[in-house]
């Protein structure tokens, strides 16, 4: 087991360095120099030179790369060009909003998916099963931003039930603390619902097919023979056996979502990591883009590492078959 983790960790570290390298060279080889950001008609050639020296852009690329990698690994992620603040601070500040959106959406997705999957599996081929299947298939084809826009149009503008954008209302600062919670919750409904709706189909599919495999097993018959109530047989005995693939999937997708649900956040003007990174990319705020890529790389690798370890821990067959 420990050698499995070590092997997996080594390959993850290697990958991380690869990602960092890739991002660095991608951004630095692209046309358009960051020095142009500071371009103004009054700047002299000397002051431009000064800026280049200050940021180390006058040095050869490999030297810049070495310095940057060293700094990143020691926790110094640089200063944002446009906001003149440490990148780390900037990203950490945005993380809670994204985490709130993603965790709510993912929770909703799993509640919906588990309920529908279990109900569908109880009578495969029945009406509920067929309708759920069609619904999941159709929603899988709807891009999140399209669903988000349509929801804004119909549930926020034409029928003003929910606020169309942002995380808080204009009068947020003057609200009581309960009022603030309710205000954010009100703003959270649409984006979280969109996230859940475009993703829950896979949960239904996993749970349904997993349950169909499990429900024929002996231990389920035993549980039924003991006279347990049906809900107990389903939810306590059968459902946990279907969670393996779901955990695996979550380990891969949760870090991706956390590192920036860019377009959903842009559609809902949600003040999370995604919008920050989007703005940084458009403004060529290199330190922010690099740090965000690195962060997402770490999150993704960490997530899949955790998922693999958890899977291997649960299922010895995986351990022996790895690599």
């Amino acid at each position, binding site marked *: 087991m420990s050698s499995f983790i070590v092997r997996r960790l080594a*390959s993850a570290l290697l*990958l991380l360095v690869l*990602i960092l390298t890739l991002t660095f060279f991608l951004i630095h080889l692209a046309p358009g120099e960051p020095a142009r950001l500071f371009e103004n008609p009054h700047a002299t050639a000397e002051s431009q030179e000064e800026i280049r020296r200050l940021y180390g852009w006058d040095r050869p690329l490999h030297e810049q790369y070495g310095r940057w990698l060293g700094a990143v690994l020691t926790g110094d992620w640089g200063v944002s060009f446009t906001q003149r603040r440490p990148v780390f601070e900037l990203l950490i500040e945005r993380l809670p909003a994204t985490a709130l959106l993603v965790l709510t959406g993912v929770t909703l997705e799993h509640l919906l998916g588990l309920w529908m999957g279990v109900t569908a599996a109880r009578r*495969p081929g029945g009406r509920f099963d067929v309708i759920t299947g069609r619904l999941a298939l159709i929603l899988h084809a709807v891009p999140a*931003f399209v669903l988000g*826009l349509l929801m804004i*149009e119909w549930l926020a503008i034409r029928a003003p039930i929910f606020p169309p954008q942002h995380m808080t209302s204009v009068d947020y600062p003057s609200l009581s603390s309960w009022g603030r919670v309710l205000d954010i919750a009100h703003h959270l409904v649409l984006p979280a619902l969109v996230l859940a709706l475009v993703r829950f189909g896979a949960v239904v599919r996993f749970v349904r*097919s997993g349950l169909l495999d499990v429900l024929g097993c002996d231990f389920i018959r035993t549980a039924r023979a003991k006279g347990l109530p049906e809900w107990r047989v389903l939810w306590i005995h059968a459902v946990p056996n279907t969670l393996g693939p779901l955990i695996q999937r979550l380990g891969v997708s949760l870090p991706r979502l956390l590192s*920036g649900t860019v*377009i959903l956040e842009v559609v809902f003007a949600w003040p999370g990591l995604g919008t920050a990174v989007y703005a940084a990319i458009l403004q060529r705020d290199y330190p922010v883009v690099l740090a965000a890529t690195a962060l997402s790389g770490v999150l993704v690798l960490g997530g899949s590492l955790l998922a693999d370890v958890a899977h291997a821990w649960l299922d010895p067959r995986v351990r022996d078959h790895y690599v």
Partner: protein
Amino acid sequence: MSKALRVRVRGWLRGGSRSPLWPTAVVLVTAVAVCAAAPLLAPHDPNAQPDPFGGRLQPPGTELQAIALERGGWMLADRVERTGDGLRIWRGDRIETLDADDVANLTPDGVADRWYFPLGSDAFSRDVLSRWLYGGRLSILIGVCSVALSLILGLGVGATAALGGRAADAILMRIVDGILSVPWFFLLIALRAVLPPSTLILIIVLGATSWMGIARLARSEIMSLRQRDFVHAARGLGLRETTVFLRHILPNAATPLAVSAVLTVGYVIVAEAALSFLGLGVPTPHASWGTMIEDGRHHMARAWWLLSLPAGGLVALVLTLHLFADRLRDAMDPRRRTPASPSPFARPSAGPSSVHADQ
């Protein structure tokens, strides 16, 4: 067509008894044909702005009076009335008068031309039906070209990894893992933001970032096929390595690759729309479904057709592609042709995973 091929194609189209391939194939082919025939079918030039004031945001089915001006161009009006020395016209909330000398298409009781908007008009008085058709054409074109590129790249990398020895395999697959661990959409935005806006570059960027799933699939398929008896037999017969690969390995890997490619077309079309929505995709004023959605977003409160029509087109196309891929997989795999479980669900998909999730 040889008889064997004919039988095979017929078998594919019939598919499983529960999920035949041909209905989705017909829908898909029709949709592609309609969009491809945009220049023939579109009633107007998709970028023509006949009258940005009088013709803006007209609902579907509106017919306006079109006044041809002597100095060139058009004026669109809800109502036109002939007065003694000219015209009185109603445009939006304004009533204006025009001299008879300024109008080129005068008739005794008004003007001779009409401008019909079957699906309404946008904020610049452009015809939505024409833009929708051209937009669909561009979206499909971008999807197909990008996936052609990613198929070439993916097959190249996958085959090199599978056949090029352990070192090549390790290096290439680590690179694939590395690219895959940066969210796809992230990578797309970053690449698009630093490169100049053009449709060709968009296609290249989309193709260059969507090949990883295909590469993984190609690698695993080729690796498992290489161990099969008929491949050993072909090699034992003294065939050259390239012949073995092209004649015996590749055709047998074609099915999963085709399925994955069809799914990737769907993902790429969505990605293009999302990029265009962010202003990083197809450069203005060209219509794609993404740019139309972006246009429509600013007028949601007044003009539902600007958002819903391109959104509907996009969803319908992607859904058809998913269904088609699913049926294709069933049809080309004899083991799946007899439906074991009456599942209405799509099977877990190959290709770049969790594209929606990234968004």
